[in-house]
């Protein structure tokens, strides 16, 4: 993993973690978050990126929970319908 961090921006020794590296990682994170992707990076503070990251992860967790709920209900009814199960199996194998 350290090889990924040895970029041209490193000023000192290899064990240093520079501010620029952190900013670089934060801007990468910013690109992933839909809410912040539209804004230009010089207007979004690191704190905001971190805040939105936390919110986004919480949202994703909630979505997965809802989907788990939905899937658990669907799985209970699907097994009784063997035609659907066969179709799923054939599509995914």
């Amino acid at each position, binding site marked *: 993993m350290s090889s990924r961090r040895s970029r041209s921006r490193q000023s000192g020794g290899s064990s240093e973690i520079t501010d620029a590296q952190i900013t670089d990682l934060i801007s990468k994170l910013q690109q992933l978050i839909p809410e912040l992707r539209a804004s230009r990076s010089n207007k979004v503070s690191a704190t905001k990126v971190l805040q939105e990251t936390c919110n986004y992860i919480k949202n994703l967790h909630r979505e997965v929970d809802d989907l788990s709920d939905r899937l*658990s209900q669907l799985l209970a009814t699907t097994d009784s319908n063997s035609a659907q199960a066969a179709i799923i199996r054939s599509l995914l194998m």
Partner: protein
Amino acid sequence: MDSTHSNTFQESNHKKRRKIGDLTTDQNSLNLMPWRSESDQNTYSKKLIEALRRINSPETTTTTKPRVAGQVRETADRVLASTAKGRTRWSRAILGKWKKLRRHHRKVKKAKAGSGLNRAGIEKERLRRLPAVQKKTRVLGRLVPGCRKVPLPNLLEEATDYISALEMQVRAMTALADLLAGGTSAGIAGQVLS
């Protein structure tokens, strides 16, 4: 911050390339990113289905719905972590909850994280010393599995990977739920072809 300006310069160059006709290039580069490719999602979907079928044994018909939903969630997370092939700390942490042998690895990793913090503490890190940043960092560390005491740069890398993985998980589970709810083969065929 000067470093931010150099970032913007690179970003704006990248953005200039993103004209209307260049959408396909973006799609291709997105597919190369981890967790974004179709094959990753297919791998995950297959493993998920197999694992979920194992849950649906005769005993589960008597267990309560929230319990089964919880089992589905745990299974989904576990399969997600195993699809990560142990490249990331968060995936190892999730798998560690299931395979007790992995706890040895976790202890070793925590020691390394501690020494990383000591080295970074010597540097003048204006950004990461801000109390607001530290507070958010702590919250983020709690949200990403296994990253409570991880130093900031590692945490940011883990979070980046974790978010992509979660997005894929949502896509795969949504597709699966639509598939199961679809009912007719025409509906299912439509899902697969889209």
